[in-house]
């Protein structure tokens, strides 16, 4: 897909009904963004608990598998809330996002983060709970999600 096709697509998103509706309201964008932030906190909490356990900082008496199992439901819940609120936020300012470097960094890290969490981190931890690579998995996951959150916040500044 050529870049002018992508930008056309982003214009199409911005002109969508939801995009226009949110832009037309004073308080809709801020309210949706507030819930986006709550979703981030839920996801962030699961990431912190899971990854800090993998790195061996907290809850050492519980197994790594147990902590991952206990947090992954909340991870998914936070993620759903983030997507449900994130998509309308994006639709309301898609063209601005297209020109925002932070947006692209966030999206790339988000895709890597999701793939890493569900295809690498969780299966590996549940299979081999005390391996030498476990702390590295925790560190990688924590770094990835920190970049996602921080670059996401940065979209607002660009």
């Amino acid at each position, binding site marked *: 897909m050529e870049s002018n096709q992508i930008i056309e697509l982003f214009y199409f998103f911005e002109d969508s009904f939801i995009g226009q509706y949110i832009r037309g309201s004073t308080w809709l964008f801020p309210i949706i963004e507030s819930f986006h932030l709550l979703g*981030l*906190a839920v996801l962030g909490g699961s990431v912190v608990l899971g990854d800090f356990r993998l790195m061996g900082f907290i809850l050492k008496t519980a197994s790594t598998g147990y902590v991952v199992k206990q947090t992954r439901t909340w991870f998914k819940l936070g993620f759903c809330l983030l997507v449900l609120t994130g998509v309308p936020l994006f639709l309301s300012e898609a063209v601005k996002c297209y020109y925002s470097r932070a947006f692209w960094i966030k999206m790339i890290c988000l895709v890597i983060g999701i793939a890493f969490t569900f295809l690498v981190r969780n299966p590996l931890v549940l299979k081999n709970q005390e391996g030498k690579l476990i702390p590295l998995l925790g560190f990688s996951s924590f770094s990835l999600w920190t970049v996602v959150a921080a670059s996401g916040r940065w979209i607002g500044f660009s």
Partner: protein
Amino acid sequence: MLDFAEWLATTQWSIALHESLYLYPWIESSHVLFICLFFGTLIFVDLRLTGKVFTNLSISRMNKGILPLTIVGFCLMSLTGLLLFYAIPVRNYQNIFFRIKIFLILLAGLNALFFHKRMSKEAKKWDTDSLIPNRMKVSAVASLFTWSLVIISGRLIAYNWFDCDRQPQSEWINFLTSCVVEYQLYEEIDGI
């Protein structure tokens, strides 16, 4: 208070923060990350109390493992929050969402105080009984609810549609935000 906020705004560091191109966004981004650390870990402490997660771990072990992170998150979040306030003191002081947020933080603080008082007395009992008193469950849910509202009102500070400069506002809004409105000016404008 308004005088104090106005004085803060004239201090050198406040102006520097306010005008800095990168420092302010950096502080705000880290504020968000520390919110995740604070509230994200608190969610699990509260959920444990309601018996929804980590039921294999005793409450005291769970708190011992996680609360230090929550406290670190709280300190860093407060520090960055204070800096954000310091960068724009007058506007924040007169911001209705900021005022709601401070009020809610006080409520959440009282709830936490009540909670810890009970917990330090009875935590061991809960560990062995595996039965948490309903009052504590209510306190845990109240904590989740109040802090969520703190985060929501905090996010709305940046979008204040009741800003003192956006007049006319209803009288009670101006009262709640201590806005000093020169009505005469508006009357004159209306007259034109």
